[in-house]
């Protein structure tokens, strides 16, 4: 075997990874659905309209239980995101309140939020969150897409997967819901989305699938707001390196021509 072959084997083994997200549920395995997102691939960009709709779903549905502590309202207007106008973001933020410091008597002062404030959390602390949710803690969604394998597809499958009929062989606790995409198939979150639950400003029909898609898009952006910047810089870096590579290749060739 030649050494070059070994290198190839080494690399293929290194990059070999199981992308399967097979989750057992009542004897059946459910593979993540792949609705196809515009941000996939090296040139992928977020669908701004879908991100805006996704934010609406998050703020009107998910945010009653799930926080997004890594995000500030200003992120909603920054480049590469939903790109709401700065004015719109001020309005969005002003709908929420925050206790910010104390007045001259030491009493807490409440004010409306501004774009530089973080997203408002639904609960004051983890225990309050658990107490309101049957003892289950609704995870923070800022990084949920990165914190799950094949995140965007998983979130989409999970959110749109509540209507699957439960196999008779399966017995789950009454406080839990059946969802074959959730590990173990029994999830504490009840079905969050129903048709026409939100009213989209752009007239898009708010089906469960559409809302799941939009909110998966939004959460993917939220997990990494710099993704578009990363991919576009990557293109420049790769281009530079490839040109440099050719120059160096011919330099090496010429230099070693007379070395025998």
């Amino acid at each position, binding site marked *: *075997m030649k*050494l070059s072959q*070994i*290198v190839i*084997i*080494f690399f293929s*083994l*290194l990059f070999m*990874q199981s992308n399967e997200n097979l989750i057992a549920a009542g004897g059946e395995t459910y593979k993540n659905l792949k609705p196809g997102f515009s941000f996939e691939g*090296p040139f992928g960009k977020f669908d701004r309209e879908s991100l805006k709709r996704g934010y609406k779903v998050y703020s009107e549905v998910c945010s009653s239980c799930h926080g997004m*502590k*890594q995000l500030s309202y200003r*992120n909603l207007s920054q480049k590469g995101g939903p790109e709401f106008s700065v004015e719109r973001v001020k309005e969005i933020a002003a709908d929420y309140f925050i206790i910010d410091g104390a007045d001259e008597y030491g009493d807490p002062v409440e004010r409306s939020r501004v774009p530089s404030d973080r997203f408002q959390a639904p609960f004051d602390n983890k225990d309050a969150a658990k107490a309101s949710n049957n003892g289950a803690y609704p*995870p923070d969604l*800022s*990084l949920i897409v*990165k*914190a*799950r*394998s094949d*995140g965007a597809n998983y979130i989409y499958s999970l959110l749109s997967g509540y209507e699957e009929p439960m196999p008779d062989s399966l017995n789950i606790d009454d406080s839990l819901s059946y969802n074959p995409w959730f*590990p173990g198939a029994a999830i504490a979150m009840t079905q969050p989305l129903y048709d026409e639950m939100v009213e989209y400003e752009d007239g898009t029909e708010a089906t469960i699938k559409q809302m799941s898609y939009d909110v998966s898009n939004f959460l993917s952006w939220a*997990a*990494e*707001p*710099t993704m578009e*910047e*990363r*991919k576009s*810089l*990557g*293109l420049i*870096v*790769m281009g530079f*390196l*490839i040109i*440099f*590579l050719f120059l*160096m*290749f011919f*330099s*090496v060739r010429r*230099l*070693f021509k007379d*070395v*025998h």
Partner: protein
Amino acid sequence: MNHDYEYTPSNGFTKWLDKRLPLMRFADENMLSFPTPKNLNYFWTFGFILTLSLVTQIITGIVLAMHYTPHVLMAFDSIEHIMRDVNYGWLIRYIHANGASMFFLAVFIHMFRSLYYGSYKEPREILWILGVVIFLLMIITAFMGYVLVWGQMSFWGATVITNLVATIPVVGESILTLLLGGFSVDNPTLNRFFSLHYLLPFVIFGVVILHIWALHVTGNNNPTGISVKDSNDTISFHPYYTVKDLFAYIVFLLMFSYFIFYNPNILGHPDNYIEADAMVTPAHIVPEWYLLPFYAILRAVPDKLMGVLLMFGSIAVLFFLPWLDTMKVRSARYRPVYKIFYFTFLISCLLLGYLGGQAPEGIYLFLSRVCTIYYFAFFLVVMPLLSRYEKPSAMPIGISNPAIDTSIEIDEVDGDLVPSANT
């Protein structure tokens, strides 16, 4: 290049400097005119790549430390702050995180190259040992760096690995408490790991200088394993190998950039984007990919202490390599039997890496045990036996002379091959 070549200061200033601090002479002798075998292949470019990898890690690490907060309540969020709010913070952090993987990839290739071409043999024993020291320091540094992220895998990985210390009889528990700064992984642990993670790269840097010094005393090995005889065998390091190494580095950077820009999280574990929680244990605790072979060895043994000993032993055995393999012929090119065992060893190491990521049960556990046994047998049984009984194939006389060396004698007494032209 002429061996008799000597640096001559060209102008008044360099002449003046040369008498006081011969900096230019040192640079010239070690980086420019340094005689290097002319037949080095691309496996010899990894030393250069590794040096630059270390520098990259140190520079990005220093910048990250400016924005990172080593406190259990803030560490995770401070990294998200770097990712989201610091200018190009995402880039610096992705370079640092993937850079560690690339560093290990390069060091593995570098070590397997040594193993194939016998670069650890006389007179390069010290060079090799320093390399193993660097490798060991790299493992410790990388492990501590992974903990700083303070995700679920950081926390539970730290818990599992530090607890290995507790298996040491009598003093284990006390050492563990000292290591953790308490009775479990907590804020004091994070603080001392941060401190050490900042310190150790500079220690590595120091050992790297010794490593390169040792290299420059003995000179490079080469793919034939035959010692350099005269200046016909060598070319100057610059421009030949500076250019060739740079070319290889660009290829390396292309692969590195793919990870940074297009798949930055694939080498990590999704669970590490969940903040550390002492009350929730992940389903499978796995270390970073580059530590998986050692993790597989650890779990292959039913006894905890033995597992720990074998895991450390798997690195410790490397220190004795020059004395386990006493075959005079260096390169596997001329060792047909060694070559077979070598590639089996390579595959077995890759397999251990795969097995380290699987649950230790059934066929996985069985294969882990087979590979672990082979790992040690390769060094402790195969190498000494081959040194004694293997008959090397025909070798050329020298690097520049492809004619078959007919003067190779087999010493009948101990079966050891003594290529007279090589000693």
